[in-house]
């Protein structure tokens, strides 16, 4: 009995010692396809975190099929635990589908829907070109920008930039020309007639030939951008996710 208790105590102590190590050493980048430059990606993601306690991670898998959302959540939970705050890009290259998963305080606005769309747009543009490395790096770059804004006490998409003032004035000046142009045209009434429609003899249009031949058919398709944002509870955090096919 005493031995068992000692063994349990040792295991508990070992666990306590191991957990922080596990948290600190958990990889920020995983690639089971082995096709990406893992060192470069990990460096970009680490840099994006700006040395803070907010995890910035990416995982690339080649396992097509299944629920990508569930796989992303599971990967995050297994790697970092359910209470970790962070953002994950989960990419299934065979299913050509991705998810961006955010675990953050419920009141945090850093990764609001507009900010996530900003990240998503940059990532998707690269993924559509099959540039997966570029997708991960674009993800890191944009997340880094959002965290920089947070450090400055700002939130992406909230409030107006001062640039809007000259922009609105320029827009007003250009669009204001439309009604004034109409007023100016009112002063001009001497114009040449372009058509002879007033002099067409009624019923005189006689069609001796009216044919139309099918030449060819062309079909284009582009993937549907799935901006289905979902918000759920994950541990002590709020989980927000966006994603889609590319």
């Amino acid at each position: 009995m005493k031995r068992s208790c000692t063994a349990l105590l040792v295991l508990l102590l070992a666990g306590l010692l191991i957990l922080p190590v596990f948290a600190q050493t958990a990889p920020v980048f995983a690639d089971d396809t082995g096709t990406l430059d893992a060192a470069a990606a990990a460096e970009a993601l680490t840099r994006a975190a700006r040395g803070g306690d907010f995890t910035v991670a990416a995982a690339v898998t080649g396992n097509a099929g299944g629920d990508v959302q569930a796989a992303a959540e599971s990967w995050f939970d297994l790697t970092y635990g359910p209470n970790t705050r962070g953002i994950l890009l989960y990419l299934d290259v065979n299913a050509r589908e991705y998810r961006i998963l955010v675990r953050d305080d419920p009141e945090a606005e850093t990764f609001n829907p507009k900010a996530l769309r900003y990240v998503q747009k940059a990532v998707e543009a690269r993924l559509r070109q099959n540039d997966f490395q570029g997708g991960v790096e674009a993800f890191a770059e944009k997340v880094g920008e959002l965290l920089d804004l947070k450090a400055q006490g700002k939130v992406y998409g909230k409030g107006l930039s001062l640039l809007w003032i000259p922009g609105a004035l320029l827009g007003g000046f250009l669009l204001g020309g439309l009604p004034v142009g109409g007023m100016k045209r009112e002063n001009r009434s001497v114009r040449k007639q372009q058509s002879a429609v007033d002099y067409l003899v009624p019923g005189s249009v006689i069609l001796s030939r009216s044919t139309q031949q099918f030449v060819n058919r062309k079909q284009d398709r582009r993937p549907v951008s799935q901006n289905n944002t979902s918000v759920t509870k994950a541990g002590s955090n709020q989980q927000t996710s966006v994603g889609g096919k590319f």
Partner: protein
Amino acid sequence: MADNLMEYKCPHCGGVLEFDSASQKMKCPYCDSAFDVEELKGRDQGLDQAPPAEQPGAWAQGETDHMGVYTCKSCGGEIVADKTTGATHCPFCGNPVVLTGQFSGDLKPDLVLPFQVDKNAAVRGLKQHMSGKKLLPRLFSKDSHLQEVKGVYVPVWLFDAQVEADLRYKATKTKNWSDNQYHYTETEEYQAARAGTVAYENLPVDGSSKVPADMLEALEPFDVAKAKPFQTAYLSGYLADRYDLTAEAAKPRAEERMRRSAEDAFRSTVEGFSTVETQSARIQLQDSRVRYALYPVWLLHTRWKDKDYQFAMNGQSGKFVGDLPVDKSLLWKYRAIYGGIIAAVIYGVAFLVSHL
């Protein structure tokens, strides 16, 4: 001096008759007698003959190259007029005169559209034309002086033609749909062809270099159904010119308008497509016929800040045209007002969207 000049004397008092647009009759301004124009038809009998040759006068050679010199039958005064003038007033006694030599032989018009609106309507038309124009200089309507209002019969060529067309088009039909994974766009391309004929009649082209062609076209349409066979009596009391641009010179303008209109007419039969692009068009005019007519136009002339402004009114329908000056300071003022309002709206909308 040529002496082919006609005055319509009132059989009752000897005054000179004028055409009255309100009653469509010849009226004596002195004794108010009125006569049907038809009754005076006999006076134009000599018009089908060749115009009389110019007779040598007292003017030096070359001096009257671009002028005609006539003697007023009422006062004997010498009327000096442009070579194309067909009806005018004697500068001495003010009586209306018709220079019949300008409308005889080949120069005789086929049709005349009598004036239906009078001089007062033309002056009122100018006031209406200026009202409600926000960019008109405030002082223009007050300070501009109406220099002249004249009723002029403008010579026009009326073209009739059958247009034969053969056109080819590239047309497309586009269909869009989506499923869970993709947005699809299907484009079907077609080759369409149309051939056939279309007819135009009474398309007018300005026959006078004195009235700007664009001004006469801006006054369209004139109702040719109300035209009368030509009689000089209709000209009495108005000014008139004979043509100085030949039918041959006017024809390309008529053809240009008919071609464009025919292209539009056939293009409108290519229906049910998302886009239609004309690839080739072969358009030929056939059975072209031309008639010579006189159209009624009121010409008004004002002067403001040493600049002339010309206006015109359709003497049949009352349609008024003429370019008005634009006050640049008002133009910038309105631009600033509208620009400011639009800028505020843009900023307000952006502000609301950013805070949603």
